[in-house]
């Protein structure tokens, strides 16, 4: 079993839709939870990170963490074609040094 599970999609939605992206994890030692966005042929870039259970909002994006269920989500409101990208969840754990584990990434297409 992978430490971080993420459905690779693809996920196709119409412009303006609410998008829900999810990851589950198995290691309860994970401390930081992040979402990265990766455009085609580019490196991933950090979108949001959170430490505790609950919601964190940034504009049209909301990150949600449920540590009891080992489940994290990213919601995108009023999705735009420019949101079309691969979204990777990531989690950090301290093992003598910090290690970041990434999910497989979900490919999102927002149709105009």
């Amino acid at each position, binding site marked *: 079993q992978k430490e971080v599970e993420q459905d690779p999609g693809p996920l196709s939605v119409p412009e303006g839709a609410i998008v829900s992206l999810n990851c589950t994890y198995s290691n309860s030692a994970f401390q930081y939870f992040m979402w*990265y966005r990766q455009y085609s042929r580019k490196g991933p870039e950090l979108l949001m990170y959170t430490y505790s259970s609950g919601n964190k909002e940034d504009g049209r994006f909301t990150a949600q963490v449920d540590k009891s269920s080992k489940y994290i989500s990213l919601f995108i409101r009023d999705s735009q074609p420019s949101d079309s990208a691969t979204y990777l969840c990531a989690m*950090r754990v301290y093992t003598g040094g910090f290690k*970041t*584990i*990434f999910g497989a*990434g979900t490919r999102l297409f927002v149709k105009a």
Partner: protein
Amino acid sequence: GAGVSQSPSNKVTEKGKDVELRCDPISGHTALYWYRQSLGQGLEFLIYFQGNSAPDKSGLPSDRFSAERTGGSVSTLTIQRTQQEDSAVYLCASTATAVENTIYFGEGSWLTVV
């Protein structure tokens, strides 16, 4: 530099040849990571350097893979006797400190083994 720089951006090599991939992290960043990204597989951790500490090599898939970081800055990932399954994007990343959550990635080196 302004960002993480990787070279070459694209490399096609014959099976059995050795390849070297280079990474210039953001100036002053103490932590450097190498990841491999294959289609549908997400980012696979390979190796992590932090300052003068011994690197975390736990992600290297075989002894054909090695990496070094000279002078706490530039890093080189070497793949010996390349195989077709080594074809992937090799991403380098850096963070300002070991505890910094924001990882800055380069655009990757796209390796194709034919």
